[in-house]
Structure formats: structure tokens, C-alpha cells
């Protein structure tokens, strides 16, 4: 419990957060992937979004082509371009780099929710890659009043 000097390197926090991984084959896209800082917006409405940093230690890009969760059958990959959110076919985690999923940017979109997502609830998401491999991420639900409020996909910010 003694103070120590901390190198302030908080900007790129890519710590493995004990998240499971669905892929077991070492040569899959999922095998090079890690996720950190995963959270999902708590809500009692029928829509929400999830955010995280996905990193890729492999020498090839990893391409996310889908996401599934027990919360809903309607989970999509979204991007935000020109202030408008819209579904995309895929999101790429560059080789040796990372993909930010964040409010106001790329995110996982959840629709047609039938139950509330309570603050502090842990929600598992399965990311699907274009080689068929999968990666499980556990996200914590948090109250959030910020920029991801508008889900219509047509609103200009």
C-alpha cells in the first residue's frame, strides 16, 4: 500500500481483462485478438450499444463480420460517419493494431431488446470473424448519458 511512481501510460490501455475467447485454433483471426475496457450502455429501452477496444497481435488483419448476444437476436456492427450511425458489413482490426468501439464512433448496436440491461450487469458478446472463428467478450453495463443516445441513424449531430 505504499505509493510508487506510475508511468502515466494510460492512453492505450490494452490489458487483457479476463475475457474468454471462443476460438481455439491458433491460426484463426480470433486467436490473435484481445479485448479490453468492454462496456454496454445500461437501459430500460429497447436499444443499446456496446463499446470496447479490440486489439490484434497477428500479422494479418482480423475482420469482424458479426456479433451475437443472448440479449437480442438483433445485434449489428455500426459505424458513425458524417455524424450518422449506420450498419456496416464488417469492421477491421488491423494487424498489430486495434479497433476502437466508442460512443460517437464504431460500436456494437443492440436492437429489439426485450429486457432491461441493469447497471453492473455483465453481458457476453461473441464477435464473429470472416474465417468463422469467434471471440467472447464480457462487458459491464454502465449508465451513460453521452453521445450514443441517438440511434435512429438519420440524425445529424
Amino acid at each position: 500500500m505504499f505509493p510508487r511512481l506510475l508511468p502515466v501510460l494510460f492512453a492505450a490501455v490494452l490489458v487483457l481483462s479476463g475475457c474468454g475467447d471462443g476460438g481455439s485454433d491458433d491460426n484463426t483471426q480470433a486467436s490473435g485478438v484481445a479485448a479490453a475496457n468492454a462496456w454496454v450502455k445500461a437501459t430500460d429501452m429497447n436499444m443499446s450499444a456496446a463499446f470496447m477496444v479490440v486489439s490484434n497481435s497477428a500479422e494479418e488483419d482480423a475482420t469482424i463480420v458479426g456479433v451475437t448476444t443472448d440479449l437480442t437476436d438483433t445485434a449489428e456492427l455500426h459505424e458513425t460517419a458524417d455524424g450518422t450511425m449506420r450498419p456496416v458489413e464488417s469492421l477491421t482490426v488491423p494487424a498489430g493494431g486495434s479497433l476502437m468501439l466508442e460512443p460517437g464512433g464504431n460500436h456494437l448496436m443492440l436492437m429489439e431488446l426485450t429486457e432491461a440491461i441493469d447497471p453492473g450487469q455483465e453481458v457476453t458478446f461473441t464477435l464473429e470473424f470472416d474465417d468463422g472463428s469467434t471471440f467472447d467478450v464480457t462487458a459491464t453495463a454502465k449508465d451513460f448519458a453521452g453521445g450514443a443516445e441517438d440511434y435512429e441513424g438519420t440524425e445529424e449531430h
Partner: protein
Amino acid sequence: MKRRALFGGAAAVGAAAVGGAALGGVMGGADAAATGPLTVDFHGPHQAGVSMDPQAHQSLLALDLRPGIDAEAVRRLLLLLTDDAERMTRGRAPLADQEPELAAVPARLTVTFGFGPGLVATVRGRRAVPTWLGPLPAYRTIDRLEERWSGGDLLLQVAADDPTTVAHAVRLLVRDSRAFTTVRWRQDGFRHGAGTHRPGTAMRNLFGQVDGSANEAPGSRAFDEIVWRTGADAWLDGGTTMVVRRIAMNLDTWDEVGRAGREFSIGRRLADGAPTTGGSEADDVDLEAVDARGFTVVGPAAHVRRARPDDAGQRIFRRGYNYDDATGSGLVFSAFQADLERQYLPIQARLAEQDALNAWTTPIGSAVFAIPCGVRPGEHVGEALFT
């Protein structure tokens, strides 16, 4: 007054955790930027924020559980707050923080959690609430307690050497608590500014008195014996008990008292906190010493005489913070002790019965909390309460 050669920069700050009763010289040549990156481990056998030289700024928050919040919801709340505390005490932004830059300067940030009787009852049932976990006995001779400064289900002690860090941490913790709790009270306080005094220097309260002289040095064996619980309930093994008292101080009537009267009321010299019977701040008070006329040097009602333990078991660790705001001036007094009934109550009863300082001080708030044991990585605070 003892003055010592001063360490430079980080070395001086690194010594902060050692604490102790040494007298302060004035800090010189310190590198102010050295204090910002300092961190205090959140994890360990004991919660952080108790066994350390207190930070310059502190907010205490008492939260009340909302109606309908059950044990499962309390667990989710503690998961969220533990995660926030883990991140922020390392100088990292909590999840969903929209002002992450404000988390970048930990400045020895600690977040310490205390459970009131309401939370323990919610999680484990009324019968699990320890007998001492509830309001202190009413001290009718001195207490003028106000609801707005008393009680609470969940205590957050948030402290750092940078007030901006404290404000941000409080903001994030309250935001994540909002679905589960309402804020019952908040008490902000300050000690001497970071870098202005040698680490380990006892602070001065707004009466000008050296406050906390008799404290054992954090980390010492004596400190550990006074503060940490062993055995008993598993969730408190390695924990402690905490009393928070808001003590209003009447600076105007104190103004009317001369220097000799002030020193006589407490039994210590104002200049350096040493007993009026001589020696230095760290020395024991000689309660038997008499003056030329045969009167005891330390009067019968002097604070040091009344606060002095009847036996070696009556020891506490004080962590006081001054307050000075629109509500008045005074001291946010915190005391930590392993056994509240055995260690704290006898002292408090004696002071309520007679203490010269009572002429100028009024307790206006009071609360008791159980400080659960420390947190291991992967756990949430108070996890043992749920098993």
C-alpha cells in the same frame, strides 16, 4: 521547532506513506510535478486509505440504498464501484468516462468503502449487523446532531493530493451509484496542501492546534494492532471500524480566549504540539506534573487528560480534515479502530462528560461504518459479505 534538511522531489513524497509524528519543517525545493503520478495500491489485505499519511483533500460521501435495492443489486453496485476505484487509483479512466483526462493524475488517490447497517442488513439480513454498527450512544451533553450529516448505508472515502482528482473521482462514483443509491451527505475537507509540509507532519486544525499528535505511525505494529480486526466475521477480518463526526468549531468564541487559556484547554503548546509539561510533540503528557503552587500543569478538563486512555486498549487512529465553507468551520473527524466498543466508546464518553474544548466545539454529525477487508484482484469490495 525541529527543522530538518529536506529531501528533494520524489524521495520526500515517497516517504509519505511512512507517516508518523515527526514535526514539520517547511518543505523546500520540492518538485511539485512529482506528486501527481504517485499511486497507492487499491488491492491488498486491507483497504487503502487508512494506513497512510493522509492526502491533502478528502470527500466523504454517505449513500443510502434506494427502496427495492436487494443483495443482488448491491453486488452489482459494488462491482461497478470497485472497477472504477481500481482504474482511477492507477491513474486510468473508468469505463464510460467522458473526461478521461481528469483521471490521469492519481496524486495518491484512494477510494475506501464502508458499510452502514442498512447495507449489511440488505445483503445478509438484520441479524448479521454487528451490535456496534449503528448510531453511537447519544451524548446529550454535547451532541447537536443533524440528520443531514449523520448515518448512511454506504460510505465512500475519496482522497487525493489534488482536489481536481477528488472531484472527478467523486463525480464518477456517484454517477455509477445513482441507479442504486441517493446521496445522503457529502463532507469535504482539507489538510495542509500537498508539498507544503514535510510528509508525516501532523496537521493543524482551524483552532491552530496540532491535530493527531498521539497517532501511531501508519504501517507500524502499534498502528496495525489499533486499527485492523482479526478473526470474527470473515468480511471484517482485515477490516476495521470507522466513526465519522462532524465537529463544528466556533472560531468567534475561540477568538476571545488568550494563548495561555488555549494551551490550558488542550494541554499542549500551540507552537509545536508538545505537552505543556515539556518535551516534544511525540512525548507523552505528564498528567501528574504540578506547578509551583501544587496544581497539576494539565488541568482536570484539559483535552489531553480526558482523551487519554484509561488502559492501553483504548487507542484509536484519527484522520481529521478541516472544513471551512458556507455551512461553517470545523473538523470532519474520522477515527479508525479494530473494536469500536472497546477502544472508541470509552474515550468518547469521557470527552462528552468533560472536555474543556467542548466550550467551543459542537458535534453536528455522526455516523459509524464497517470497513470491510481489503480487495484482491478479480474481487469486488465486500465480496466476503455475500458468501
